Structures are given as structure tokens and as C-alpha cells.
């Protein structure tokens, strides 16, 4: 037999099976979701949600597709949060502190309350990655923020009005483009292709009858 729990969706009580996620509970109750549901598996950040268990002082945040319902859970979804996204030309910016200062100066108003870290749905050290961004240490900021799903929950809790996921994204793009080491073999291969090095091999393959291709395929050497 299934066990049921009481969840309060936007304050209204519904009795739902205890093994459902919050997202599943909303659907069980009869909601047809449009906003606030994207990947359904913890990657897109569409389903940021705030909840409190009755009697608990602590306000919790989570991703609705990744969190099981609990008895007496009061749920409010946060399907949109007004983040600031500054535009820039990735070809023209340079990976220095100045770019942060220019695009996201509010990061320097961080008061160190750690509310962002405490609320992160991915368990990231958000305050720390903002500190790295302040210092222009984009490599570390990128590393620390890599698993961010851009749900915006941290920003909803920040007294300084910082748009953490956008800051982190800028840092990662700068790191990926300018700071990470270049791949010589990749450059070389692109050049070889431009020079037409593989044209003959490829057109030769494309011209072969299927039987011959099957032979080649079934006996090809596999790198260990």
C-alpha cells in the first residue's frame, strides 16, 4: 500500500503519495505544468522551489524535480527570478579583474553573509566563487562554480543583489576561452582538414559497397 503525506501547494493542502517528488506531487494534484519544469532531472534549473516544514524555523530551497515530498511541507515555486545578465563581446573582453568591475560591480558589495552558499541547490560554495571573481581569479571561480544549474536561488537570498550564476558563467567563458591551455592537436587537425588531407580517404570509404564496409567495420582495430 502506498503511504500518503500532506503537502501544501501555495498554501492549499493535497494528499499525495510519499514517494513523489515535489514536481510529481503538483502533477498528481492536477496541475499541468508549463513554467517551472524543463529537464525534469536536475540540469536546467527551471524548478527552483522554496519550502518550509510546518513547525520548522528554517526556510529551505530546492529543485522541485529532485526533492521528495515530506509531510506538512509548504511549497512555493520560484519559476522565474529577475537576474541581471550583462551583454559583452567575448572576442573583445580580456580575462582581468576589470571586466568584472565593469559588468558586475555589485559583487564588490558582498557582505559575506554566506546566505548564497547555504541556499545553493547544488551544494556549491557560492560565496567562495564570488570571492574568486572579485579577485579576477577566473580559473578558480570556474572550477568552484562548474556544477551551477543557474536556478537563481542563491540570488534570491542575496542582500547585495548579486546575480551569481551570471557572474560565474562569465568567469567560465573567460577561463574556457582565454586561460585554459590550448589544444595543439585540435588546431593541427582542423588545419589538416582545411588542407583536404582526409578527402581521399573519406571519398574512398563513401564509394565502397556495403559488404566491403561491413568487412572493414567488423574487423577494425579498437584502441585499448
Amino acid at each position, binding site marked *: 500500500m502506498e503511504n500518503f503525506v500532506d503537502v501544501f501547494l501555495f498554501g492549499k493542502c493535497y494528499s499525495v503519495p510519499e514517494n513523489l517528488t515535489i514536481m510529481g506531487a503538483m502533477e498528481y494534484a492536477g496541475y499541468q505544468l508549463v513554467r517551472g519544469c*524543463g529537464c525534469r532531472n536536475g540540469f536546467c534549473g527551471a524548478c527552483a522551489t522554496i519550502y518550509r516544514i510546518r513547525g520548522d524555523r528554517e526556510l529551505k530551497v530546492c529543485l522541485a524535480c529532485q526533492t521528495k515530498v515530506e509531510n506538512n511541507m509548504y511549497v512555493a515555486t520560484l519559476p522565474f527570478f529577475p537576474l541581471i545578465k550583462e551583454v559583452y563581446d567575448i572576442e573583445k573582453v580580456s580575462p582581468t579583474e576589470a571586466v568584472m568591475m565593469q559588468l558586475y560591480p555589485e559583487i564588490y558589495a558582498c557582505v559575506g553573509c554566506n546566505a548564497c552558499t547555504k541556499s545553493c541547490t547544488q551544494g556549491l560554495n557560492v560565496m567562495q566563487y564570488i570571492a574568486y571573481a572579485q579577485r579576477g581569479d577566473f580559473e578558480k571561480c570556474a572550477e568552484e562554480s562548474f556544477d551551477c544549474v543557474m536556478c537563481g536561488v542563491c540570488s534570491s537570498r542575496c542582500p547585495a543583489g548579486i546575480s551569481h550564476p551570471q557572474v560565474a558563467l562569465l568567469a567560465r567563458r573567460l577561463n574556457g576561452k582565454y586561460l585554459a591551455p590550448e589544444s595543439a592537436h585540435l588546431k593541427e587537425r*582542423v588545419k589538416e582538414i582545411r588542407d583536404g588531407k582526409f578527402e581521399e580517404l*573519406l571519398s574512398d*570509404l563513401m564509394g565502397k559497397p556495403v559488404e566491403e564496409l*561491413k568487412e572493414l567495420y567488423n574487423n577494425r*582495430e579498437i584502441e585499448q
Partner: protein
Amino acid sequence: MYTGELLASAKKVEAARDANLALEPARMTAEEKDSLLETWHPDYKTSEFEELRIGVNRGDKVPHELAALLEGCPRIGAPDVDLSKIDYDTDVLIIGGGGAGSSAAIEADKNGARCMIVTKLRIGDANTMMAEGGIQAADKPNDSPAIHYLDAFGGGHFAAKPELLYKLVNEAPEAIEWLNGLGVEFDKAPDGTMITTHGGGTSRKRMHAARDYTGAEIMRTLRDEVLNRGIPVIDYTAAVELILDEDGKCAGAVLMNMETRELKIARAKTVILATGGAGRLHYQGFPTSNHYGATADGLILGYRVGAKLLYADTLQYHPTGAAYPDQIFGALVTEKVRSLGAKLVNAEGEVFMHPLETRDVCAASIIRECAGRGKGVKTPDGSGVWLDTPMIEKKGGEGTILARIPAMYRMFAKYGIDIRTEPILVYPTLHYQNGGLDITPDGMTCVENLYAAGEVVGGIHGRNRLMGNSLLDVIVFGRNAGREASEKSKSVTTGALTLGHIDAFNRERAEAGLDSGTVSPKLLPTYTHGNPDFHKMPF
């Protein structure tokens, strides 16, 4: 933590781990694979397919669920809208805000065209965001586009369109370079060498990754670039019908605001369909790894205006969907788990196959293990086999899991399963639409000025796609469609708009005796999780 029977079986897996780790299971012969697929792969279950009765592919077999939509009732009729009132006028209209649509938009913009993206959910709420494992490109010295070609051609059962596959493999390294240049953070060694692994069916290690957030890393970067370029993105807006002009060329789409249901008209010189896959149709009752909006809309929209489908009867069931716990039933366990060394083990603790066979073979083999040999593990939702993740730590050293597949670790940790020390239960999940709209190498369908890119396309991979070739296809053919459609738009003069094809389609339905009330495109699935779906009263 597992309990009861699951725990008992997990103990057997643990006891056999060291021996299993040392084992190098044999690969199947071509004959073994063929007979396995015919007996156990869902694509070969003829009772699950039917012949289309109308349209360009009449007589071709597709799954029942897809047939119902392809032959379904259009959502709107011509009288519902006023085509003389244009809400959006643009050169290139891009339908779908995933990897293919975003890549197309960036290239169209770069080429000087006006373009816009309309998308059903938000930009990035898409299958692209969820890709974990990686993206293929033959950029290592021991590899070449020709080897890549053979791997993909064979893996796709020798059915790919050669001219499309040629493009895919030959433009792969450049696609990686492009992404890297946009700031995508690929896994690299300190000297810049890309860290690459095998995927099922590859003969060289050419899988590039950004941990196990490869798709997310690509998607968020592309989205950021789209926004930086100021390309208009109209979200929560679905295309519900394409619009042709009086000469039968594609010239726009009827759009529906998903929240207010308001209809809008977009006119364009060229249109790119980039609506992705169909996992949410749950073919044959399978769970799916796909995002919420994967309902085959692009196939329906295209088919209705005469675009041809290719291999629409071939689906990819990813061998390793999560089979336990309930809350993540069907969610993807990336192939990278096997690339990194985890083997497939049955309820008795026996390794029953080589873990890196192609996906179709692997899925069929798991189904056989459970349904045919009775060696599956019983779960609340059915059955599954073990994927012995702790092997990864033994093989690659402690910490490998957190460093290489943190998303996987997190997904199970939330439900109290530590994949570093405990194996996980898996069963095939509906993952990818191998077939789709037929295109020429310039990305155009057989309907003039209607382009298609990404998972909505069929033919690039033949009848089965290798891991890592889809993200690649999305980038290569997304960019290609963006370039070609924007170039073409420069010479297009659009005639008067018409929705005449809807009437023609309805007539065809009637003549074929099709009278189902199923409305399509579907747009979104409806879930009730066992609660009887009650009738909703209007206000």
C-alpha cells in the same frame, strides 16, 4: 542504501567485484548481435508499429504513438488566425531553443541576417542541456575523420546518408574548436591535450567532455552567446503550424503562447525546425531520459506541409536508465559510467556482456537478461541489472567519480545511494529519436525554405546513433542550417501567406477514414502519477 532482496543481490555483486574487474568480457560477433537485436530490441517488435495512411511517407512503419500524432487533428484551422496581421517579421525564424537552434541563430546572426528564436519552454530547457557524456571528434593523432566515419556508419547499421555523415565527421574538429573559442570548458590535460574516452561503438578514444555536464556546459555557453548578440528569444511560445506562401515555400509559423494560449503570426524568409526529439511520447510504455518538451512536434509540423521522414521507425533506448529509486525512474545514467570502467552485472553477480557494445545491442542484452533469462533484479517499477560503479574507483583511483561524473554522484546521493561504494540498478530508457526529417547537406527538407537541424533530423546516423555524435550533429548541422538559411534568405521574396495545407490535410484525413480526435502537435505530456485523470471543468 539497499534493503531486502536488493541488498542481498548487491552483496553478490560486491563479492564478485574483484574477479569481475579483472575480466575482459568478449565482444559479440556480428551474427550474435543480429539475432539478439531481432529477438529483444523494441524496434523489432512489429506489433508496436503501424503503417502511415496519409502523407509523403504513406506505407512506412512508425510507432503507434507517433502515427497517432502524424495523422492527428491540427490544433488550429485557417479561420483561427488573420494572416494579414504579422506579429513578427524576420529573415530566419528558428523554432526550438536547444543546441541546434542556438547554434543556428548564432551563425545566422553572424551572417548578417535578422533572426529570432521561438521556443516552447525557456531557451536551454532542452535535451541539449541534459547531455552528460560527451561529444565526438577525431582530433587525436591516432584517429581520423575516416575512422570516425566507419565507426558511425557501422554503428548505424550502414544506413546513414553518406553525404551527411561525411559532413558530420569532417567538420567535427572545427565544431570543437568553435565551442572552445566561445569559452566551453572541455576537460584537458595540463598541456592542453583533450582528455578523451571511448563511447559505445567507438574504435578510438574521441569522446570530449566537460565533466558529466557536457551538454549543460555547451548549452549555457550558447545561450549566453545568443543573448550577447541580442538575438530575440521568444520563450514559452510554441510553433503549432507552419505557414507556406502561395508558391508552396515555407514562410513562417503560427505560434502559441503556452501560458495565455494567444496565437501570433511569424513571417520569415526561411524557417529552421530545431525542435528536438520525442522521448515524452513514451513509446511502448518506456520511461524516458528526455526533457519535458520532447514531443516530436517538429516531425508533425514538417510532415503536415509535406516534408519527408527518414527512419522514423528507429528509436534509441539508452541501455542504462535509472531503474531505482522511483523518483529518478528512467533518468539517464550516462554511458561515461561504463567508459570509466563500470561493468554490467546480473542479479547473480555475473558480468553478462561487454559494457561498451553499441547502445542498441546493449539495451537488447539487458532486456534479454531480465525478460529472457530471468537474471534481472526485481524493482518496484519492473526490473533491472546492476551497473557496478565502485569498479570505477578501483580502476581509476579513489576520487575518480567525484572528479569525472559529479552529476551522477549527486543524482543518486540525493536518495541515499553512494555510487562510490554501492552499485546502481539500470534498465533501458527511451533516449533518442534516430530518425526524423530528411535533409540535404545544406540542411533543407524537401519543402523549399524549410530547414531542419538537430535531433529532429533523420539520416545522419542511420538506424542507430553513437554516443557523442548527437551533440556533435547539433553543433555541425545547427551551424550549417544557420549559415545556409540566412544566405538563402537574402534572395527570397515571400509571396502571400496561406494555411491552405491544413484544409488539404484534413481532407486527406477524411478520405483515409481517419477520425481520431487526437490533437497535434502534442506540445507537452500530461502526468498524473497514478491519480485518475479527472475532467477539468472550464470556468
